[in-house]
């Protein structure tokens, strides 16, 4: 993707926006980009805990805007991946402390004065002001979608809104795909989702207990060896324009699966 400023969004909550932001951010930084991930969920911040940086939060995005600190003081540098930074949301302020213009100002400063290569904005759930604020400075979007009815419906709505906001590059991250269920015909496949939403996936991430384990300890999965971690890393590479084939979700192979296909079960 050419977009420097990318909003990570989904409409529906709980589909993995924050996990996606943390992992793709860490992945891009691992590949050498200077990356900042911004939490825009004012009042319900979570990117700090998912990344394991919660104990180092002193100032936040709103403090910068209110002139209580300089940008440099609010940015938290990750110690595991160089060139990865977090700009946390405020946990106590009202969401009205932030708006589209302020967000654009912050992003401009991060690019022009701090020299970031990439800015990932973790949007709050919903389609209201929080989302609109998060999307305002974005040139691109990662729409996180789970292969289930409400998430796909909300993703469609969000894609419409992003197009209306002139966000040029919109890509899907299909999260929590269960290969076995896809094979048995009880879960939408990536092809089904592409057909329904008309937006290309840039990442397909399998359901993986490893994600919970990595968030338990606050370490991005891309730094480990879990399947989901590898899928996020591959997504980061594709985002940079590398031609990385999608991971074979091999559970639909083998004799039993062939039998199942033969008898119409898969």
């Amino acid at each position, binding site marked *: 993707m050419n977009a420097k400023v990318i909003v990570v969004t989904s409409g529906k909550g709980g589909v993995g926006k924050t996990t996606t932001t943390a992992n793709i951010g860490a992945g891009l930084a691992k590949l050498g980009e200077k990356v900042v991930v911004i939490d825009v969920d004012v009042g319900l911040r979570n990117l700090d805990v998912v990344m394991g940086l919660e104990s180092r939060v002193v100032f936040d995005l709103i403090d910068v805007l209110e002139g209580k600190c300089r940008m440099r003081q609010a940015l938290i540098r990750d110690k595991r991946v160089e060139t990865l930074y977090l700009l946390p949301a405020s946990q106590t302020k009202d969401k009205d402390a932030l708006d589209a213009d302020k967000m654009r100002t912050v992003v401009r400063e991060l690019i022009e004065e701090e020299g970031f290569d990439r800015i990932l904005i973790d949007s709050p759930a919903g389609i209201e002001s929080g989302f609109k604020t998060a999307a305002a400075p974005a040139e691109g979007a990662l729409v996180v979608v789970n292969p289930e*009815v409400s998430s*796909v*419906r909300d993703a*469609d*709505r969000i894609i*419409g809104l992003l197009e209306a906001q002139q966000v040029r590059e919109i890509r899907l991250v299909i999260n929590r795909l269960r290969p076995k269920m*896809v094979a*048995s*015909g*009880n*879960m*939408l*496949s990536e092809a*089904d989702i592409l*057909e*329904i939403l008309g937006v290309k996936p840039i990442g397909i991430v399998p359901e993986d207990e490893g994600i919970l384990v990595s968030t338990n300890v606050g370490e991005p999965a891309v730094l480990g060896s879990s399947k989901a971690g590898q899928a996020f890393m591959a997504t980061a590479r594709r985002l940079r324009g590398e031609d990385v084939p999608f991971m074979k979700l091999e559970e639909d192979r083998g004799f039993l699966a062939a039998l199942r296909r033969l*008898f*119409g*079960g898969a």
Partner: protein
Amino acid sequence: MFWGRGKRTKETLKDRLELVLAYDRAQIPPGKVDALRRDLMEVVERYFPTQGRAVGPNVEVEQRGDTVVLVANIPLRGE
């Protein structure tokens, strides 16, 4: 897993999603189309009166490429 059920559940889901997204994109509440269908039935009845029409007009919202279209299928003679 649900071999006995015939249709794979994702096919049902795809059909449901296609319909609901067509309505969402057109910003039309499904009940409105139902009301239109009933009105249409009355009008058709006025021009082509039949006794005991078995099937009324079938009105659906469909996605065709980038546009959403209303499709009315009006049988003039029900068997």
